[in-house]
């Protein structure tokens, strides 16, 4: 697994450095201007890039599977799980470390601001950026961790969905069925994880785990579908649902 991480990290290290350097330069450019708008913008840039990086990585990995790149590991003396975990940890390490480095730099900059201005003034105006840690409770300090966990959660769910999809394809199920089954399974995962978060919140209230899953506390399947897929995609899912009922028992007949 470590071997996989080693090679996968090197693969993305260029992109990672470019993103990091780009963001740092952006931070440094207006070093002397202390516009609060800018701090809110910075925080959202960090959030967006972190999530974007996570999604980009998983999309790259899924695309790899449709190109020859998958051949690199196919005959290797590693198990599929080792490869999967290696890639997963690479993704988590990349966007996690990115988030933490940027949060650190961001807060450093805020700290300099804090030296010149009143803290209360800051608090009022930075209320919507959860990445500003200065002057906050311990509970709120966990927000970067929560963001990281949230991304991990999304990535793992997507990876699982894709994993199930390929497994089903291998068994020659119709691709419509595969998609529908994957969505249903991910819905179940979401439902269960929400329930788990509720339990965790009750047992360890100070950690505020409800940030991990989308912050809307949705415990129903309908809420899930609305939140994750939005109303438009709900229609698509319904369509798939109808197709599924039609095809669910029919295997692809072209092979064996």
């Amino acid at each position, binding site marked *: 697994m470590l*071997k*996989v991480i*080693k*090679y996968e990290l*090197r*693969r993305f*290290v*260029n992109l990672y450095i470019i993103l990091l350097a780009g963001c740092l330069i952006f931070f440094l450019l207006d070093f002397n201007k202390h516009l609060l708008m800018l701090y809110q913008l910075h925080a959202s840039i960090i959030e967006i890039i972190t999530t974007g990086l996570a999604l980009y990585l998983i999309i790259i990995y899924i695309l790899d599977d449709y190109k*020859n*790149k998958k*051949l*690199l*590991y*196919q*005959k*290797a*003396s*590693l198990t599929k799980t080792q490869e999967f975990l290696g890639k997963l940890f690479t993704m988590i390490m990349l966007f996690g470390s990115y988030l933490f480095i940027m949060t650190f730099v961001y807060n450093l900059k805020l700290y300099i601001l804090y030296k010149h201005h009143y803290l209360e003034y800051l608090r009022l105006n930075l209320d919507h950026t959860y990445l500003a840690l200065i002057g906050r409770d311990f509970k709120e300090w966990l927000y970067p961790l929560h963001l990281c966990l949230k991304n991990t959660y999304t990535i793992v769910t997507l990876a699982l969905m894709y994993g199930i999809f390929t497994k089903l*394809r*291998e068994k*020659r199920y119709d691709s419509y069925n595969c998609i529908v089954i994957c969505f249903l399974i991910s819905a179940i995962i979401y439902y269960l994880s929400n329930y788990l978060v509720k339990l965790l919140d009750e047992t360890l209230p100070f950690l505020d785990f409800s940030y991990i899953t989308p912050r809307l506390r949705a415990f129903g399947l309908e809420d899930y579908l609305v939140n994750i897929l939005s109303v438009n995609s709900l229609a698509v899912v319904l369509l798939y649902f109808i197709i599924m009922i039609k095809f669910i028992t029919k295997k692809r007949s*072209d*092979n*064996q």
Partner: protein
Amino acid sequence: MEIIKDTITFMYPNKLVFENVEIKINQGEIYLLIGRNGCGKSTLLRLLAKIEPYQFKLHLVNEKEISYMPSDLVYYSYMKIIDLLKFYDDTHHNFSLDFALKYLDEFKLNPKQKIKKLSMGEQKILNYLICLSKNAKLYLIDEPFPYVDLLNDEIFRNMIINRYDETKTFIIATHQINEFEKLASYCLLIKGYKTIECLSTDEIRSTVSLSVEDYFKEVMRYVKGD
């Protein structure tokens, strides 16, 4: 002894590739896989290599003991030649780095060069080198020759003979039949989607007095007219 004896039916979503085709591969032979463009040579190799989801019954050969050379080199864009070789050395237990480095020298490739900057021919060479550096039981080689110069062709053939022993089987798909026909003991001829003919190369030469290449031309002309 057979390592594969099976009947294949396979189709891509819109295209039938094989229908009830019998195929039999013996251990310890060098096969030449020939056929016209788009007849399913690469697909057959991918099926044998278990890249396409298809359950071949392999005898005497473990799935990890297959060395498959795709028609294009697979690498990450940051890699130098040596990185790729080290990658294989790290992740494939049957890969021999010494063998690879020895032949890298013979091909006059600089291990510090970026793979992205290599020419088509050099990439082919590297691809081939990696495939043969694995100590496998079944080698599946997809089009080794295009872009490669004549002297390197010679090294290609030597490498196969060097690797060859009675437990190893080679299947080489190529259009440059004359380059390999002296080496091959059998040729698998894909005729349409219903038959794969397996012929002994020496038999072709002694019965019809034609080289495999000429024989192939004759046969394919006939199939087309059919």
